[in-house]
């Protein structure tokens, strides 16, 4: 089982962040929220590993 990666892992992170913002550009708040929800599900499916996903949820909750 792989561990949840919490150290920097994206090459060219500024490019990624800009692409993320660009995907939201021009959307209403509601449409933006929906996009984020879909994105979470796409990424979760890509990860697949249930244990990693649980850890990711914890990390996002900022709880220890």
């Amino acid at each position, binding site marked *: 089982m792989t561990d949840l*990666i*919490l*150290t*920097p*892992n994206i090459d060219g*992170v*500024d490019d990624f*962040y*800009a692409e*993320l*913002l660009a995907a*939201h*550009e021009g*959307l209403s*708040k509601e449409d*933006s*929220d929906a996009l*984020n929800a879909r994105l979470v599900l796409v990424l979760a499916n890509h990860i697949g590993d249930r244990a990693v996903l649980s850890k990711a949820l914890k*990390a*996002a909750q*900022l709880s220890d």
Partner: protein
Amino acid sequence: MFDDRYTLAYKRYPYKKSADQDAATPVRHPVVVMGGGPVGVATALDLGRQGIPTLVLDDHEGVGMGSRAICFAKRCLEVAGRYGCGKPMVDKGVVWNIGKVFNKDDQVFEFNLLPEEGHEYPAFINMQQPYYESFQLDRFEELQKDGAPIEIRGKNRVDSVEVHDDYVTLHIMTPDGPYTLEAEWLVGCDGAASPLRTMLDLDFTGKVFQDSFLIADIKMKNDNFPTERWFWFEPSHGGGASTLLHKQPDDVWRVDFQIGWDVDRKEEMKEENIRRRLDAFLGEGVQYDMVWSSIYTFQCKRMDSFRHGRVFFAGDAAHQVSPFGARGANSGMQDVDNLGWKLGMVIRGEAPESLLDSYNDERIHGADENILNSTRSTDFITPKSEMSRLLRDAVLDLSEKHEFARPMVNSGRLSVPCTYDGSPLNSSDALDGPARSRPGSVCPDAPLGDDFLLNKLGDKFILLTIDADAPDVIEEAGIQVTRLALSTTDDKSGALRERYLGDNDKAVYLIRPDQHVAARRPSFDENQIRAAIRRAIGKE
């Protein structure tokens, strides 16, 4: 007739009537530089050192008050070093490496720029812009004394120009009235509001950000704030929506408050109102003197082309970026670095005029990179939409706990020199070497005994060989390329190997006068190197 647009910190070139003003027909100069800011004066240093007569015209008589730029990056210092004024800058400036980021009032993380060893110049220094300009002007006067054909004329305001095929006519206003000059080449270094751009009716397009920032440079004795860069997102003191604190020499600190778009500038600029923000930020009872303050808005704009026949644009006149990331003066110096040798070669008849188009190609590439970076920083600091703000805040919240989010925090990506990937002057990369020294990149410095590599490269074409054979001099297409032969046996620190060889045990580099790599190969190949030289001077 002469309303000063700003007050002077130092009067350096008082108006003196020139014989040109009484000439019956306009006197023609090889190069005229419009504007004596950091970029204009650097242009004269570069050309003057090549022996090319250069006349700088400025509508003031010295260095403007107010510090504006405070952060000067390594490449800018290296270029100033080559011109002969880098050392006093480093001696005066403060060196910093640590940055701290706060969200609300809590420190979320700290970073160390961890500058790489084995470079003569530090990654950054902080220093008030008037000092920077003064050191350049000291050097200017020194070169003049040594006979360099350079001159600067104060209170010489360029009011209009006529551009012809092979020269430019300039109409100039002085305290003694108008006169006319001609220039074979004109370099517009007249700043962000560039009157020259307007005279030629050229566009300056891009983005204006809907926010304003209040800068206050204050003098205080305060050990609570070390020599670090501190950036607050949404601090509770209410002084500003974001706040930046940065140390300068002479116990001066730069405080930068984000104050919103709809502000009454006049009201905000009143000392009592600035002090109200500062007191909220510093806490009651902290003693300080106000040195300079200003309100500015962000713009990221550039011209469509930096060359228009016999006219060039450089520095803020050509491109403007938001200050987060310190790319204004730093990129202006790279413009000069790029233009100087090319214009010199064309004036000496060593290269075709088309070489000058590569100034446009390469520096547009640089400007776009700078604009991209500072636009992103600005988007992070002043999010445009609710979602953009939510994502920004998520990054900040995560960054306190999780290391992965820290590189996403963008309070300014500090200026690094541009690599001219894809430049028409580059030869294709024939060495499987380190990416950082591929064709187009600026040569990374490396220690050589008591000296440094960049000093040895100087500002001529060089064939750098590392444990490789090659002739000591190559004459090609009318220019001379001399060899600098180095060996890894003298490379005690291993920096040369790491930065230029990688896994190879020898290499040959063709290096341009601005210290950018034009070509590299595993060994000397006469035909290939000759072709690379021709290509690098626009003859292939």
